[in-house]
């Protein structure tokens, strides 16, 4: 969804700094990984001189090669063992860094204001936490060890070359300008291309989530072909963009081959000249050529990592971008609510600038009062509920809970003071107990059962195959809407805030379930200030006071009897409601 406002992506510099921050606490691990790999690579470099030594022995007419050959075997074993150990250390380093990063990512992602996430589409978040994490994991697993090994080999080999004869080193370095130029050429083109590719990946993810998540609806409305085409379009775009990246990458490698040719020729010519004028032996020229030839693989590997690195950096920037988002601001001195009252003064709100859905709303709720909020569908009830719960910030006007303005209460304080249970049910995947403990992490099984009993959910929970340990949520035991909504009320009881807002928490279940839920809701609201949004007017009639919202404005307020007598909006709603029920 290119027209969505995606979540931020970090700059290259910030990404690098973030990696530094992750590295710092793991310095020791990093040093030991580096040390072990250096040792292993250094040992491996003994292969070429040992082979050169064998050539020299042949040249001298000797026939005893036992010592160098045994040494070659020892070198091979030591190199293998050292590499295995070093690689394991490097993986541990990289993987634990990645784990920290993704955990911080989720932490920040979940603490973002809801609007921000919704603007971007949840596919943006999920694609970051799935695809991008996978890309980085792959680099960490494959590229990082390779990079360490290759870079070390290159440095150490060039050192070896210098020891043989500095003029060989000079010849070898002729390749370097070409390599440097090529890398620069490549990086300039690759960065934007990879960033673009990630955006396309995100769009594909979004589409797949939309389609797979709504599979049942797609089938019912026979939209299969259309949705398959949507997926095809997104997927094909991903293929196309990837192929563009591949073409760029292969051009990059072709240019690197040129560098190899230039360097190798230079070394051969140097050998020719140096052996010709007697300043080097054939053995030395051989060793130099072998050295340089043995550099092909590591140099290519290291430069190829430039490619992986580009790809990983694009993903990393997307993780860091979210991980760096500010958490919601906490006030210096968080206010403490003095009671459980709610006060909204001149509150207005617009989701889309210029399109107000709430206008100058004033609302006062006394502690432990039960207020019903009613009005036509689309009047702004849910919006008001969300503003009071601190989930959205009003465009203008002020809100206070227990006499403390929401801003002074802070994020954490607001969460402790008010809970919002909406008509949207989501049962979290996992066991039932795990789901409930999201509301109160340290709750004992006994507390869970007590909360379940309070809203009347215990009987059916006990009847589940594994009771509290039953796997629920998508892909597991499917709860009915009534049950799911009861769970939401159980979570409310467990979270135990002084103020609770129920936004049609009883509506989804149909009237049969609604009655069960109404009873449960009344139980769950005991001892709390309650704002209840309800289309089921029996619930409104039972409230202490009713507030009627119409087109974003409070148009009436009073008790049921007052409002019915006043013959206004509420009376009309009540008439329609009771008309159907008194025939």
């Amino acid at each position, binding site marked *: 969804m290119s027209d969505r406002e995606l979540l931020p992506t970090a700059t290259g510099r910030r990404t690098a700094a973030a990696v530094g921050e992750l590295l710092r606490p793991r310095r020791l691990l990093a040093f030991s990984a580096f040390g072990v790999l250096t040792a292993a690579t250094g040992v491996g470099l003994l292969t070429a001189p040992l082979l050169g030594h064998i050539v020299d022995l*042949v040249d001298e*007419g*000797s026939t005893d090669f036992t010592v*160098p050959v045994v040494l*070659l*075997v020892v070198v*091979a074993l030591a*190199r*293998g063992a050292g*590499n295995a150990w070093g690689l394991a250390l490097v*993986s541990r380093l990289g*993987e634990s860094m990645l784990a920290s990063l993704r955990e911080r990512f989720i*932490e920040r*992602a979940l603490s973002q204001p809801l609007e921000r996430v919704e603007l971007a589409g949840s596919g943006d978040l*999920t694609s970051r*936490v*799935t695809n991008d994490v996978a890309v980085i994991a792959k680099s960490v*697993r494959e590229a990082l060890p390779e990079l360490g090994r290759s870079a070390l080999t290159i440095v150490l080999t060039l050192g070896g070359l210098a020891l043989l004869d500095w003029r060989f080193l000079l010849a070898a370095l002729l390749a370097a300008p070409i390599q440097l130029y090529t890398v620069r050429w490549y990086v300039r083109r690759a960065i934007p291309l990879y960033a673009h590719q990630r955006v396309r*990946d995100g769009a594909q993810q979004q589409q797949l*989530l939309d*389609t797979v998540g709504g599979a*049942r*609806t797609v*089938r*019912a*409305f026979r*939209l*299969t072909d259309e*949705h398959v085409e949507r997926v095809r379009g997104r*997927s094909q775009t991903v*293929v196309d963009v990837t192929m563009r990246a591949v073409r760029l*990458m*292969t051009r990059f*490698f*072709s240019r690197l*081959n040129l560098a190899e040719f230039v360097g190798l*020729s230079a070394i*051969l010519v140097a*050998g020719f000249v140096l052996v010709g004028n007697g300043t080097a032996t054939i053995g030395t020229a051989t060793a130099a050529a*072998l050295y340089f030839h043995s550099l092909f*693989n590591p140099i290519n590997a290291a430069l190829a990592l430039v490619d992986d690195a580009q790809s990983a950096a694009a993903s990393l920037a997307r993780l860091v971008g979210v991980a760096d988002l500010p958490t919601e601001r906490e006030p210096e001195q968080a206010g403490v609510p003095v009671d459980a009252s709610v006060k909204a003064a001149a509150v207005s709100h617009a989701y889309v600038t210029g399109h107000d859905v709430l206008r100058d709303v004033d609302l006062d709720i006394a502690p432990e009062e039960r207020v019903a909020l009613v009005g036509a*569908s*689309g009047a702004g009830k849910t919006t008001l509920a969300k503003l009071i719960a601190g989930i959205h910030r009003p465009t203008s006007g002020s809100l206070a809970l227990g006499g403390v303005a929401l801003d002074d209460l802070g994020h*954490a304080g607001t*969460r*402790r003071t008010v809970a919002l249970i909406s*008509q949207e*049910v*989501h049962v*979290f995947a996992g066991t039932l107990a795990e789901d409930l403990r*999201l*509301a109160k992490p340290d709750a004992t099984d006994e507390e869970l059962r007590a909360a379940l009993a309070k809203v009347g959910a215990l009987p059916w929970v006990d009847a589940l195959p594994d009771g509290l340990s039953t796997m629920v949520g998508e892909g597991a035991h499917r709860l*009915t809407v009534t049950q799911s909504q009861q769970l939401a009320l159980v979570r409310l009881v467990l979270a135990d805030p002084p103020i609770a807002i129920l936004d*049609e928490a009883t509506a*989804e279940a*149909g*009237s049969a379930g609604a009655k069960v839920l109404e009873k449960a809701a009344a139980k769950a609201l005991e001892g709390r200030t309650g704002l209840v949004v309800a*289309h089921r007017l*029996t619930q409104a009639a039972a409230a202490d006071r009713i507030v009627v919202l119409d087109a974003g404005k409070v148009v009436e307020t009073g008790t049921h009897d007052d409002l019915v007598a006043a013959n206004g909006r509420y009376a009309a709603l009540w008439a*329609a409601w009771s008309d159907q029920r008194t025939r």
Partner: protein
Amino acid sequence: MLPTGRSILRDAVSGQRRLLARAAFLGSVHQGGEALVPVIVGLVIDQAVSTGSVGALLRWIVVLAVVFGALSMSYRFAARAAERASEQAAHGLRMRLAQRVLDPRGGAEAGRLPGALVNIATGDAKRVGVVNTVLPFAVAGFVGLLVSAVSLLRISVPLGLLVLLGTPPLLWLTHLVGKPLERRSSVEQERAAHASGVAADLVSGLRVLKGIGAEAAAVARYRRTSQDSLAATLRAARAHAGHDGAILALTGIFIAVVALVGAHLAANGSITVGELVAAVGLAQFLLGPFQIFAWVNGQLAQGRASAERVASVLAAPPAVTSGSGAPSGNCPGRLSLRGVTHGSLDSLDLDVEPGELLGVVAPDPAAASHLLDCLGREADPAAGTVELDGVAYTELDPHELRGAVLVAAHDADLFDGSLLDNVVTAGRDVDRALTASAADEVARTLPEGVHTLVAERGRSLSGGQRQRVALARALAADPPVLVVHDPTTAVDAVTEARIAGELREIRQGRTTVLVTTSPALLAVTDRVVVLDGGAVGAQGTHAELVHANPGYRSAVLS
């Protein structure tokens, strides 16, 4: 035949065989060229460096240039072909997965989080595709091996034989070392998939989390999963590192043996010093192909594990059996259920007459959703039959059936796009449907009317607005039989009353089943049946039932 991991992998490869053949051929040219480089180095040392001939030096440098040119170009196009093959195979699998999930017979989503399914369609499909990237390189590596063997044979028969005969056991050993990797990597991938599934689940429940301030607890939960996944990954990484180390050691020893034999041959004069250099260079070059084999092995292991997961979705048993029939063209729309037993339905007999507007009241919500599952063919009843116009459901193709019987579930999702896009889907008379569902009112309050984009799953609409748009979509489809479940739970009483009247109007003459407990809707039906204990308990008109049946009154009128 049901797909298996093996067949998925085979199809992914054989579907791209032309590209793969091209990649393998060009890749072989590349590896052959790479193998020739040390040979040429040996020749330069023999014919130029040790003789001092400038002509020979120039000649061989030109040859070197040609070889480099060839190997460079061949690599370029080999890699492109291989990558294309990989991407196309992954794309193909993605499409097959999407089609399977959306298959009219259903069944693929059972037991899987949408996030996990999406992960299979992206990550796993990709890993299977990657097999196509690595296979040509395996072939090419083999060719490189062959070229060096031939060069070695030309230098000396014993040396050549040594390499030729020594390689297979070496390959076998690397395979043996790679074996345990497969298991580890499969566990690791599972954990990773689980972790990203949990992440996706938390993200989609974000609103609920925010409502009760459970963000911190959710983060703690994700952290545990992430740490689990980390532990599995580290175990796999250690296995990988051991594998790589073992291969390095094996190749090093192999080179030592080649050097030993070569040195003896050079010492007794059967090869020159230059040839010894070439032989050692070739042995060193052999590291390349061997590393390629190790890499290929690792990728294949991952590819196999992923192919298994892809296959498990593709081979998921369908939720319903499918016939091949289609409902007749001018379908009268008579539904009859005979002895249907499914979930909380117990030998339910129910007839819906053509053109009838029937209300079904299910005091037990589970019974309602089980009835809907059966009518919409999300599930086959354990016993009994459902018939449309006298034809058993099981004889009909579910896709065709849904053209005649549309079941609009209560929690039906809206899709990405504008309000109108969502209603138009199969729509005939869209305007009328918008009016009948009072969705025209919705459009009037939105900034851009019917062209306003609805956010993911319609979340930028209010609950009642979303419900009305979903109802408009169902009405616009105008099917011969429409089954609607609680379409007005989030709508105010006045609007609901309006919808009830319009609904009767727009469905005039076509069969409609309203599964609901809303008295406003039930009041406009021709007949109401009450499900009791999974079977029909009472029936009559709404007015009769209200009058005569206290159970009904308490279920509906409160």
